[in-house]
């Protein structure tokens, strides 16, 4: 009888244990004594983006000291993990009060689901006139802006001046020049262009530039929006040019299997002469102390060349980088907006000076001591005739995936330029 009692007790204990394990974890969020907490998630871990991370911490500390009773709870994840987590959080309606987002196609599903708060009041009020023109538009959907950009990126071809000098080469002005440079480099067994096309948006930038130079600034954007077509001869021609370069061995061997990171390290170890990348890489060639001074001094950049006399060299491929959003159903929306506005104001100058980021807000370059390459890039931006947003960002995620896969196929020679165009048309026709 006693035994039975014990076993009954034991089993009850088990059940209790199981039930306890399933409940709980609800109470932690009840702020009581007027204290408010803004949850903020960003994607610059201390390990891989030390300078960004420090700027964020500084701004957060400043904000907290100026706003009694508000604490900012920061969570940091690296890029890919961030993307995954934010999506899971959105699914369960638990977005952080403030977080980072990308523009256009990425932003759209969140906005349509009513997860992001419109930030027009900030844009028209406190932050009026502080953004470089063209940077907030990709964050707008149906006339409202749902994110405020922090960075502006334009792609240029960086090149190793030391290698160019060694073989008597000059920065190419035209596509013919570029091909000559490539031929000379190949003859001397130097890999001409570092490209990590495993990440495929890298290859997409080459295609986009050709499309821009051959078809003009509107052709690609129109094809994506459905007003034009990827079967436009200029866009097919752009795909041909990509294959022409790939066939002549312009890109490092096995580019489709190499990540952007690996390609970058080849360029930075002087194993390749050129590298097309956006300005987020500028610090590596100017201020980054971990990169040998000698190498930094030997890097220059040139604008993407004209093709057969066509194209405007002041037309760039690029776009705003990440932007900040405020969650629509945040408990502390007003404070969160205040934080965003504070953050963006502080970010502009700090980010150029300390992290070498080209910010999406206007900064007074003259008043700061900046490396020459920054000044040049900022000047380029002032004189830019057009900025074409990265293709995979313009498209909705379904079509973007097709685009990225097709870019790999194009570089690998698995599709003809015509098939490449056709696949895009098919994917875009499914887009509503």
């Amino acid at each position: 009888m006693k035994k039975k009692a014990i076993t009954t007790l034991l089993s009850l204990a088990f059940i209790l244990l199981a039930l306890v394990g399933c409940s709980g974890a609800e109470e932690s969020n009840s702020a009581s004594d007027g204290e408010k907490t803004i949850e903020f998630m960003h994607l610059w871990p201390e390990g891989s983006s030390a300078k960004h991370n420090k700027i964020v911490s500084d701004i957060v500390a400043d904000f907290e000291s100026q706003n009694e009773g508000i604490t900012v709870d920061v969570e940091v994840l690296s890029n890919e993990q961030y993307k995954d987590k934010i999506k899971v959080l959105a699914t369960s309606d638990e977005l952080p009060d403030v977080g980072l987002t990308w523009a256009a196609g990425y932003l759209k599903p969140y906005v349509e689901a009513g997860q992001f708060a419109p930030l027009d009041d900030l844009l028209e009020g406190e932050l009026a006139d502080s953004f470089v023109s063209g940077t907030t538009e990709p964050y707008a959907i149906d006339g409202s802006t749902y994110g405020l950009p922090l960075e502006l990126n334009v792609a240029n071809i960086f090149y190793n001046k030391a290698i160019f000098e060694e073989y008597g080469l000059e920065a190419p002005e035209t596509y013919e020049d570029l091909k000559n440079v490539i031929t000379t480099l190949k003859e001397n067994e130097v890999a001409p262009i570092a490209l990590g096309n495993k990440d495929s948006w890298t290859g997409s930038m080459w295609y986009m530039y050709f499309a821009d130079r051959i078809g003009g600034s509107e052709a690609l954007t129109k094809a994506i929006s459905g007003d034009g077509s990827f079967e436009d001869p200029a866009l097919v021609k752009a795909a041909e040019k990509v294959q022409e370069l790939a066939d002549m061995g312009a890109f490092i061997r096995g580019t489709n299997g190499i990540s952007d990171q690996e390609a970058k390290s080849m360029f930075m170890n002087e194993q390749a002469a050129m590298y097309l990348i956006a300005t987020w890489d500028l610090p590596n060639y100017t201020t980054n102390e971990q990169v040998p001074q000698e190498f930094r001094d030997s890097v220059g950049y040139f604008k993407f060349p004209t093709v057969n006399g066509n194209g405007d060299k002041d037309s760039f491929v690029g776009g705003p980088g990440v932007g900040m959003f405020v969650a629509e159903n945040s408990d502390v929306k007003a404070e969160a907006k205040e934080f965003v506005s504070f953050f963006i104001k502080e970010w502009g100058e700090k980010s150029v000076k300390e992290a070498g980021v080209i910010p999406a807000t206007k900064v007074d370059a003259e008043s700061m001591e900046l490396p020459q390459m920054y000044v040049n890039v900022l000047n380029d931006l002032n004189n830019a005739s057009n900025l074409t947003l990265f293709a995979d960002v313009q498209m909705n995620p379904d079509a973007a995936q097709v685009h990225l896969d097709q870019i790999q196929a194009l570089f690998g020679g698995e599709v003809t330029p015509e098939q490449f165009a056709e696949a895009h048309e098919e994917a875009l026709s499914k887009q509503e």
Partner: protein
Amino acid sequence: MNKVMSNKWMIAIYILPALLLVGILIFIPLILTAYYGLMDWNGIGAMEFIGLENYINAIQDKNFWDSALHSFLLAIFSTLSLAIYLAVSMILASKIKGADFLRKIYLIPMLLSSVAIAQLWIKVFNPTNGILNRILLFFGVEKPPIWLANPDIVLYAIFIPILWQYAGFYILIYYAALKNIPNSLIEAAKIDGASPIQIAYKIKLPLIMGVVKVTIVLAIVGSLKYFDLIYVMTGGGPNGASEVMASYMYKLAFSTNDFGYGSAIGFLLLIITLIVTVIIRRLTANDEEVQY
């Protein structure tokens, strides 16, 4: 105690905690996945019920069948390589010099995380700086393959680290099983004049057949749901050439925001794996268990 065990209520109470856990952690997510598969859902916004459309699309989706084929190829290669693992563990289990050391060496890949293994092999496969192509160049191969970029090769190139990764696991299992065989049986065979090959084939193998069957199921099921190394090394590329079912599911759900479709693929993956498991169990179940 017997009295307690014959009480139906007591049995129910004993089972309940485990049943609850299994239900919450396994069956509810499973049912939810099947349910999401019926929706048009981007994972964020409102769901729209579309019936079996996702499942029908998946069955007509060439990319899905390509990735399924790749998964099956991996399953076949994993199963075939079991023979090599078995041979290795037979050698290790016999008294050879340094067997202990070798056994530890084979276990090393098991100690590394998949991501570390992937990074390691990315370096090995690098077309210009990788150790593999350096060796090939040294031996006079003019144009060594671009392992991870050539769509005809990439899948098989990726199988190598996967098989390498699991070698230690299977060798350990076989080794333990072989060590369990009573020495007297082998001694008796030796006295009767059996050669080492005959001993391996006629005595050792039948005696550990139960274990071999388990490893076959493990290898096949593991291959069908394989994901991590491929995701890190190629992300399924170039252009889907190394996509497997699980990575395709991930890509649909997380990269293209097609959560409903991704869930449908996930559920199909489960069904396919279940069917294959049942078939293998049927095929291998006819022998009776050996008794020592």
